[in-house]
């Protein structure tokens, strides 16, 4: 005996639940995944704004579990919440957008790493900097290594352009999305910029 329920009805109900939870202020976090030229991306947002962008290689389940711990566990999948973000990302990957106009929630950026991560937005589209130069700009000329780890732990990659920071010798350096993804972003910006 099979007590079937219609999966598409269930999907509708889930989307409706996310809508009313968001409207009622009952959500700590909404998330969805989107396809991109650098692989599937996870987008997560609080009421304030986008709080986390993650690459598939970071393991979305693990990322969400850490977000539940750091931000709150009232988390639902919501497609609608990210219509705007998805459109801006599509434009960026098509080469027609050079800056993002999305509210961000910086609560995952702490201390010196947070300082570095805020500084990243000053590196313009199509240009690059180096860990050493960034350390100097922040008044900590010997902190290149710490700047490197701040870039590597940027909770908002792509939106906050840590991919524009290279090693002082010009080599590509680390990236949360992998070096290949970093190269894709740099080439995209060089081509369109």
């Amino acid at each position, binding site marked *: *005996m099979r*007590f079937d329920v219609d999966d598409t009805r269930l999907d509708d109900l889930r989307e409706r*639940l996310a809508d009313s*939870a968001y409207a009622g202020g009952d959500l700590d976090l909404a998330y969805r995944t989107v396809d991109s030229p650098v692989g599937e991306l996870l987008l997560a947002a609080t009421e304030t704004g986008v709080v986390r962008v993650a690459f598939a290689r970071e393991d979305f389940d693990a990322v969400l*579990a850490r977000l*539940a711990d750091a931000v709150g566990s*009232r988390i639902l999948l919501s497609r609608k919440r990210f219509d705007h973000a998805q459109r801006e990302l599509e434009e960026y990957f098509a080469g027609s957008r050079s800056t993002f106009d999305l509210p961000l929630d910086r609560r995952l950026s702490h201390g010196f790493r947070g300082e570095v991560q805020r500084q990243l937005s000053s590196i313009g589209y199509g240009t690059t900097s180096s860990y050493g130069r960034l350390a100097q700009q922040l008044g900590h000329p010997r902190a290149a290594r710490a700047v490197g780890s701040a870039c590597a732990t940027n909770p908002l990659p792509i939106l906050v352009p840590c991919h524009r920071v290279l090693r002082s010798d010009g080599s590509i350096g680390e990236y949360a999305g992998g070096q290949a993804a970093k190269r894709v972003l740099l080439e995209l910006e060089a081509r369109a910029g």
Partner: protein
Amino acid sequence: MRAPFERAVEHHGATVLRVCRAVLGGDPEAEDAWSETFLAALRAWPSLAEDANVEAWLVTIAHRKALDIVRRRRTLPIDQVPACTVDPDPATALTVWEAVRSLPERQRLAVAYHHLGGLPYAEVAALVGGSPEAARRAAADGMKTLRTVLKEDE
């Protein structure tokens, strides 16, 4: 550390919808009960004990939300009460949901909470009243009737 609430929706959403459908019959009401259940569960999620049985907890909330809807139904003018009984065309086979709707209430609830919701008989009894043994019998009678009505052998 609590898991993201979405996991609870993903793993138990279908179960809760089955329970709501069995308890309330009609689709729109069952879906309202589903939404109210998960909205209430979402609000309470951060304070739920780590080792709680999430599915049993959700089924219990669904029971309360379904009761609310039944109470609201009673306060409606009689001509607005959604039809809850079926008058199936004898030429076509009953669907499983139509068969469930035709069960006496105690059997229907016992089947809903035990067979669809996975609650042990003691917890079913706590929700619907009576002894665990009576809940067991109601569930067994309900399943027997369903098999007969649906002409299934097992």
